[in-house]
């Protein structure tokens, strides 16, 4: 049997374009969380969902968000809660709180990317943020035990949402 020539197969365009972005810095303690989740997501989300790792610089994030209909972002944040606590919100419906997200470039990171996208009319209609409470962004430190324990739970949530 001849193999299908994929180039000639007519396929329906995907209904929407979803991006999943794990944000952080692998050298900065709990800031690695989003990147670790993203690495573990490889091969576990549908092919039409684009998966990226980013360091959190706002304009690079804006590029990723700008073409998407739906986005799922995973990042560590310090907001005064219990380390390892997982929060989920849809940034398309509400502005991001003043939580301090990871060690973004020039203090210009995830929160700024989302608000800039909103102002410029580039925010996806659905923009889910998983923010896990970090204990420390210390250079060279490993992931705190509370955050290491949160990886599997966030992974499960993101896989479920990416398959919706």
């Amino acid at each position: 049997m001849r193999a299908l020539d994929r180039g000639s197969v007519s396929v329906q365009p995907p209904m929407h374009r979803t991006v999943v972005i794990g944000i952080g810095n692998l050298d900065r303690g709990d800031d690695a969380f989003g990147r670790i989740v993203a690495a573990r997501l490889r091969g576990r989300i549908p092919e039409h969902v684009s998966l990226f790792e980013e360091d959190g610089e706002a304009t690079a994030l804006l590029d990723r968000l700008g073409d998407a209909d739906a986005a799922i972002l995973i990042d560590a944040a310090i907001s005064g809660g219990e380390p390892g606590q997982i929060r989920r919100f849809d940034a398309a419906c509400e502005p991001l709180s003043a939580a301090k997200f990871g060690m973004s470039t020039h203090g210009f990171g995830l929160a700024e990317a989302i608000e800039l996208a909103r102002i410029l009319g580039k925010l996806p209609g659905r923009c889910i943020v998983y923010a896990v409470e970090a204990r420390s962004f210390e250079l060279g430190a490993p992931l705190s035990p509370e955050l290491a324990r949160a990886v599997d739970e966030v992974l499960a949530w993101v896989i479920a949402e990416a398959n919706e």
Partner: protein
Amino acid sequence: MARKTIKVDNLARVEGEGALTVVIRDNRVRSAELRIFEPPRFFEAFLRGRAYSEAPDITARICGICPVAYQMSSVHAMEDAFGITVGGQVRALRRLLYCGEWIESHALHVYMLHAPDFLGYEGALEMAKDHGDVVKRGLALKKAGNDLMGVIGGREIHPINVRVGGFYKAPLKRDLIEVAEALKRARDIAVETAHWVAQFDFPDCTRNYELVSLHHTDEYPFNEGRIVSNRGIDITAHEYDQHFEEQHVPHSTALQSRKRDDGGTYLVGPLARYGLNFERLSPLAKDTAQSAGLGHVCMNPYQSIIVRAVELVYACDEAIRIIDEYERPDQPNVAVVPRAGTGYAATEAPRGLLYHRYHLAHDGTILHAQIVPPTSQNQATIEEDLTTFINAWLDLADTALRHRCEQTVRNYDPCLSCATHFLDLRVDRG
């Protein structure tokens, strides 16, 4: 005695974390101290015992916005130790990659971090509400740099295609031609950017800086050249440590660089490169500088935003030229044979001279690493700018004065996460 204290807990729009205290007594600025919290030498320690080949990837992680600079200084230093010279198209590709980083970094700083200071906004978000088209223009310019970096470096957070001896893989000409089209549009935007920022209101603040940058006989410097100054320094990277030293200062965990001979400060970065290399700019970049009102030398740090815009024009122009002349090399790297020794290199990061030195064992294991980022070199100069310029604004209300202090620091686009880290700003009026 007139006494006043101004405190700013977070100095925004600079890379990294630190603190700044400005002390004012009897209506004069008595001192300005930039304090830095981060353990500054983490990466130098981290490199010890690693293979020479790991240095480009490890050092690229030091800074989110200038990974190429760290990669380039590290590979040149290793090649210096091993007696390797990289030429031809591989050398040109390195310049091209550096163009991408300058475009990204300067576009980010000019539009998102520095322009709000001149237009009276708290930051890029507030500016975008009134000037959405301007912000989109800046984003388009930056994206041309991203795309160029992606084609040469690989589409990861930092380029993964750089190695000692060259690249793992040379890009295809057709992929570069595609980027060149975007770069031509970016070049137009860069010219427009220079004319736009030239209209800003600049304080009349100049100092007689000692400018230090690379200088090359026939090109505007990125990767290679002698280290020169406007007061007679003219040395190779091998002699860097004989002329400059890093000192501990009591108020900071970061090291500050000074000249060894007289303990004086010096300035690296766009103003230094421009002032020492004006003749090496492309004709379009020179014309843009002239039409933006710059002379051949600029000693007003507040006008560094114009110089960055001129360098944006140059980086786009140079990238287009390199792509035009590009022929894909058969071999994307030269053979590397490690040997024991010491390697030295300095390249021009967007923020200025970035010096690396490595002591290597016979098998290329790193025994010792020294990294002197541009912000360490500018730190003492930033403090002097504050003690000099802020006196003229002491009658301003605290908020406005604080803003002037922040703006004065931001003139340098300081990368405090390279020097080390982020700012809590205090103005102490007594």
